[in-house]
């Protein structure tokens, strides 16, 4: 069921929704960007239409709603571990189709991989509903169409804003009541069909371990500085490290947390005693690239990368992930010709 809502009335809808949900959406923070006179676009809680930036890509993805940067798993108290409680807040998050698809990738790791669902992830994930913002143009670094993540059916509300009106398709019956007074319309969601960037993802059988020490990765040993920005902005990077802290007032009492980790960052593989793996940045670029477009697919039948282009947007060395895939394709071609 679709509705058209006057912009002036949409805040009423948001306030009704806020009775049950915390609402997160892209917001623009004036002059908070990295460089002078630039803005920072990031997720924040919103209560009005005015606050939502429908036309920009956030620097960080919305994954924090289910996978916080820091999350307490246990409290310890002398001789006992106590499982951290769940605050239990329901969340509505405004996002794009590629980002909904990114949640599906996180689900694979946290809910399907290993012997059991991750209970900390699950209890946050169960409370999240998606408000998908129509995205038919994309941004310069996007390649969601190539990754097949440009469309989604998984949403509670699909939304398109114009100068005067807001068009909403409501799939979630629990939310239709909020729109009951609005005029119905025949709005149907549209999805982007062509990005500015395109890339062909290699077939599984074309990637062999011979490509692991291909020359193409060496370039990244020189360019990558191991800052891990690509990991932190990625909507599908799901790695984390266990971290214990104890309180200053009583050091026997404290918390066990999980914190984001990144495969580009020093220490990611380092074991006690100092032995580590993938010491060159080129090896790390290879590891990440193949995880995003190859080995995740081997395990879960879908690629991990959703083509949002954030890694390219934030890289201080202007490393393009599409560029890396293209180089890999070239290396595969050369391998075949030589083989």
């Amino acid at each position, binding site marked *: 069921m679709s509705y058209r809502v006057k912009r002036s009335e949409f805040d009423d809808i948001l306030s009704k929704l806020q009775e049950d949900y915390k609402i997160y959406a892209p917001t623009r923070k004036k002059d908070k960007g990295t460089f002078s006179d630039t803005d920072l676009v990031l997720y924040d809680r919103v209560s009005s239409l005015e606050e939502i930036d429908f036309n920009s890509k956030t620097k960080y993805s919305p994954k924090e709603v289910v996978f916080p940067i820091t999350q307490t798993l246990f409290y310890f108290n002398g001789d006992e571990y106590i499982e951290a409680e769940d605050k239990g807040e329901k969340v509505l998050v405004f996002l794009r189709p590629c980002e909904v698809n990114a949640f599906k990738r996180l689900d694979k790791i946290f809910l399907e*991989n290993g012997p059991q669902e991750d209970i900390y992830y699950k209890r946050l994930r169960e409370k999240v509903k998606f408000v998908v913002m129509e995205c038919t143009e994309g941004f310069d670094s996007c390649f969601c169409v190539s990754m097949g993540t440009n469309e989604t059916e998984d949403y509670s509300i699909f939304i398109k804003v114009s100068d005067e009106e807001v068009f909403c398709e409501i799939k979630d019956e629990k939310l239709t009541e909020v729109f009951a007074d609005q005029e119905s319309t025949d709005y149907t969601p549209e999805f982007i069909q062509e990005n500015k960037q395109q890339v062909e993802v290699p077939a599984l059988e074309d990637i062999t371990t011979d490509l692991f020490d291909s020359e193409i990765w060496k370039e990244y040993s020189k360019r990558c500085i191991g800052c891990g920005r690509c990991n932190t902005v990625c909507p599908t990077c799901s790695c984390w490290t266990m971290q*214990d802290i104890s309180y200053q007032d009583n050091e*026997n009492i404290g918390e066990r947390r999980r914190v984001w980790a990144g495969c580009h960052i020093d220490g990611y*593989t*380092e*074991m006690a005693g100092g032995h580590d*793996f*993938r010491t060159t940045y080129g090896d790390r670029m290879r590891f990440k690239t193949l*995880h995003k477009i190859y080995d995740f697919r081997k395990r879960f039948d879908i690629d991990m990368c959703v083509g949002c282009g954030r890694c390219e947007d934030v890289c201080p060395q202007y490393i393009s992930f599409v560029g890396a895939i293209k180089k890999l394709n070239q290396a595969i071609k050369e391998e075949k010709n030589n083989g």
Partner: protein
Amino acid sequence: MSENISLPKPYKITDIIKETEIEYTFRVEADLEVEHGQFFQISLPKVGEAPISISGIGDNWLEFTIRKVGKVTNEVFELEVGENLFMRGPYGSSFPINEYKDKDLVVIAGGTGVSPVRSTLKYFYENSDSIKSLYLIAGFKDEDSILFEEDLEKFKSEFNTIYTLDKEKIDGFEVGFVTDHIAKVPFDSFENYNVIIVGPPVMMDAAAKEVLKNGVVEEKIWVSFERKMSCAIGKCGHCKIDETYVCLEGPVFNYTKAKDLLD
């Protein structure tokens, strides 16, 4: 709600055996189903967690041989008999003991690599009828780093043993790396056999190449990996190599799989 499998549980320490200056074996009371080659997450509040392989399995106890090399293990060394060691597990794959039965078995272990294979060795020491022969090549850096001296001495009566130190010459030990002694194993005389190789990555690579050179086929080789892990249950990502999670599909791998696990 389902049980939280990240929740560490206390296990009472009943014995601490000093193997070397920096390696102690901790015995804890534990009545759990575990398999040879699996591991636990040792989990100390305030300090953190570390994956440690099981070095001994008893009726109602488990042993862990821990090297004092990091934040967590330093703290473990502060624990005393009677105190609790927090752990969670067991996790991971194990050595396929039944597959080894009634065949010849060659075990090549270097340094702390002896730990994950020690319970397998003890099993076949106590059940020597269930194996045709067992060749054990155990190597250590020097005299001070020899682990499980009593066990090594006992094993001589049931196994064909070659013990070696990298450079030193002392009684009962050869000189050289484990790889230097692989050719002494009479692979030609075996009808059906398996080879276990456990140790530092460089040693495992070298030993695998050496046994392959001696005509062993890949399917008969078993190795055990060691990687950084935060969760041990397939969520944290640290131990992943290609599409394989060492915590889930490993740490014990057949060489046909392990040879393609390039970090």
